[in-house]
């Protein structure tokens, strides 16, 4: 992977001696008290950030990266405790400062861009007062001056329509606009340091790129220091001068972006680098050209071996009555054909209609128009027992392994659920089936008696896959099955899905927002936007020679996030 370093000012060495670093964390240890026990979250962490620098902290969930960020602004949850070390900020030690004095620094000297733009703004208040708040609290501006400055800040954050945005309520703005508002708020106190906790992970890739561009530009123009917390190593390498890799509460690797991407010898960093999904955009050699043609024929709607065929699917959501009635066309004229034993990928951003399409295929949502055939039989309006028979053949794996299983049931009961519903075999036979499914998804048989909350995200997703496959369906709808998981776990789950596909001759309908994953995993790809398919073909067709402008935009954004 090559790293774009253009435009970055030369920065001082990471291991430079103390003189005048803006942030100097030394030997920091933090623990949480959980049910009477003390759990270490950070151990002996050191970090330096200079003015004008962008530093990224990269790590998986549980690495302590968010704890580090919240410790710096002294916003640790009530059960968190600083055990050792110092948090130097421009000469003072934040770890020992009184709460009242820390409050003076927050907003004024340290700005914070939170992770989730959807829940980080007060829903009952207009944007204007929320942006002005920091300036009024710290008394840096009078009310009229703060208003003028707020408009200016919103404009700088990339909201050209700033006057209107000032008057708007949060729910009237899109996710990308809200994140820009939050960036404007972080800059409102003219702080020296900005901490951004996963600033783009809740955003679509095209929006994320624009937001990151704007954030980097502002930081550079105003000579601020920026600390980015992220799980995305590729993004960190492209955006930051320095990258710090964390794992299990420790800093395991660190250096300039170039050092990390080109010369890092640390095994964990290398593993992260190798497992980040890569887009392959170079044209495939002539030898491979035959495969796309075969795939195109296989996925053609006329192929007799097609397992599932959707023709002209349309979904309209209606709300309100009479004059207030509104119509939202979520999916418009989508056709697809999934042959037995292969993977059909649908890629798109939020609101593109990809999940609604999946829900119609699952018959959880009724199509407004169009038809659905399974094994040559029309199942568009199947009801009652016929619908249950269809459910036996089509199963689903959801995005979130935390929401998709009943926390009160044991893993064994969860996997057994479909078999029990269809009364397949005796209790003893079904128990044996549960154990063999656990084995198939590479979990120890002892897990059958555990409950979901004792399992990690990756383990839960394996359980969800075991549940879906326990009644031997022909088609599994995978609705973003890996996007809630850490990078290394993603690779494992994809490998497992591929092995199981071969073993059980499964067909997959694979829904994802991640282009690289779809390219590597699917045999055929459809790109969706605004409810329609803009382009479809083999992964090489779509990604190496995109015809539609939207596909090109998506690819560019993914490459340069």
């Amino acid at each position: 992977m090559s790293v774009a370093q253009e435009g970055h000012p030369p920065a001082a060495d990471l291991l430079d001696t103390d003189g005048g670093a803006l942030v100097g964390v030394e030997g920091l240890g933090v623990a949480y008290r959980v049910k009477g026990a003390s759990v270490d979250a950070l151990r002996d962490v050191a970090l330096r950030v200079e003015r004008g620098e962008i530093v990224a902290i990269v790590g998986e969930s549980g690495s302590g990266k968010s704890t580090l960020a919240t410790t710096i602004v002294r916003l640790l949850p009530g059960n968190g405790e600083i055990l050792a070390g110092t948090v130097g900020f421009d000469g003072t030690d934040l770890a020992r400062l009184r709460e009242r004095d820390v409050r003076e620094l927050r907003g004024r000297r340290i700005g914070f861009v939170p992770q989730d733009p959807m829940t980080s703004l007060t829903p009952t208040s207009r944007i204007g007062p929320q942006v002005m708040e920091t300036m009024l609290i710290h008394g840096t501006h009078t009310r009229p001056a703060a208003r003028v400055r707020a408009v200016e800040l919103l404009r700088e954050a990339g909201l050209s329509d700033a006057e209107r945005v000032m008057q708007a309520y949060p729910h009237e703005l899109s996710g990308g606009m809200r994140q820009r508002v939050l960036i404007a708020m972080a800059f409102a106190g003219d702080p020296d340091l900005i901490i951004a906790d996963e600033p783009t992970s809740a955003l679509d890739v095209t929006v994320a790129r624009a937001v990151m561009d704007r954030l980097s530009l502002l930081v550079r123009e105003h000579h601020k220091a920026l600390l980015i917390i992220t799980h995305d190593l590729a993004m960190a390498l492209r955006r930051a001068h320095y990258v710090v890799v964390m794992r299990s509460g420790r800093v395991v690797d660190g250096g300039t972006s170039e050092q990390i991407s080109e010369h890092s010898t640390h095994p964990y960093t290398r593993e992260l680098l190798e497992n980040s999904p890569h887009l392959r955009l170079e044209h495939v050699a002539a030898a491979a050209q035959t495969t796309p043609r075969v795939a195109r024929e296989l996925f053609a709607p006329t192929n007799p071996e097609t397992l599932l065929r959707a023709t002209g699917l349309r979904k309209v959501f209606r709300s309100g009555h009479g004059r207030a009635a509104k119509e939202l066309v979520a999916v418009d004229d989508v056709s697809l054909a999934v042959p037995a034993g292969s993977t059909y990928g649908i890629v798109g951003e939020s609101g593109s209609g990809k999940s609604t399409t999946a829900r119609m295929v699952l018959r959880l949502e009724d199509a407004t128009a169009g038809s659905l055939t399974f094994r040559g039989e029309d199942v568009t309006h199947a009801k009652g027992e016929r619908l249950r028979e269809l459910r036996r053949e089509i199963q689903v794996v959801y995005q979130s392994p935390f929401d998709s299983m009943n926390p009160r049931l044991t893993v064994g009961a969860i996997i057994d659920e479909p078999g029990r519903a269809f009364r397949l075999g005796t209790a003893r036979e079904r128990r044996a089936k549960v154990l063999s499914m656990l084995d198939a998804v590479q979990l120890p048989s002892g897990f059958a008696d555990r409950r979901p909350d004792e399992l990690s995200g990756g383990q839960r997703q394996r359980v969800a896959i075991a549940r879906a496959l326990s009644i031997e369906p022909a088609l599994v709808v995978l609705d973003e099955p890996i996007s809630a998981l850490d990078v290394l776990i993603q690779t494992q789950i994809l490998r497992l899905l591929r092995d199981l596909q071969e073993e059980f001759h499964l067909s997959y309908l694979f829904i994802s927002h991640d282009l690289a994953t779809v390219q590597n995993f699917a045999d055929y790809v459809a790109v969706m936007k605004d409810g329609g398919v803009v382009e479809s073909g083999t992964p090489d067709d779509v990604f190496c020679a995109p015809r539609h402008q939207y596909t090109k935009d998506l690819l560019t954004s993914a490459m340069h996030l």
Partner: protein
Amino acid sequence: MAVPISDTVRPPRPGARLLAFARRETVTLAAFAFLVLILLVTVWPGLFAAFDPLRANPSQAYRPPSWPHLLGTDNVGRDLLSRMVFGASASMPAALLATSLSLVIGVTLGVVAATLGRWVDAVITRLLDSVLAIPGLLIVFAFLAVLGNGTLPIAVAVGLAGCVSFGRLMRAEVYRVRSLTYVEAASASGVRGWTIAWRHVIPGAIRPVIALTALDLGASLLTIGAIGYLGFGVAPPAPEWGAMVAEGQRHVADAWWMSVVPGLTFVLIILCANQISRYFERGNQR
């Protein structure tokens, strides 16, 4: 959210969790202990009462709380503590029965309304709403007019009037749980509607209902007390807390304890029910 690292958990000392729980929930434990005491008193009144609650002794009238009359005596010299103890066996069983009745009827109505939906939901919801529009005590008296007086009719009347809040809460909870992904996942797995309700929806929806049950026990007791206070219910001279408050009011200048003791008992029981209800509402994890 930061997830703590698992390999560095320093295990708590044995019994530390129990101790931490006791320290955290001291008030809840105290409330629970008090309600258990009231229940014991209800079941074995003879164990707690030193005197006959009905026997008048004019020479001992208007004694303030002191030995051997710990809570004092009333205007005809009856021991107040003994009357309180035997009064519990008049009020508590009725309150328990009323709450159980509210719980069973309310939860059933709520589950049926939310599960069947359409016109069934509309009918049940309108019915519950119209009952809610009428003051509770008025409904109770309307029922009593039909059912006649006595402990059982009072319990049934209070129970029927109280099932409205259970029904509305259960219906809302069922709707909430049904929109969760795991319920949809079960449905997509091919699980039938009633199995989903029984295995997934009801267990997920029941917690706030348990909280309401504790709260409702206090409320039922108060309603039953109010009925006694207004002169219905148990006939004198049998002791009844509500009636004792009313009786004591007439002698408040000479013997304040006659109305304060039963009144304070109501307040304490309701506070305890509140505390336990709030404990269930927030869950025992903190």
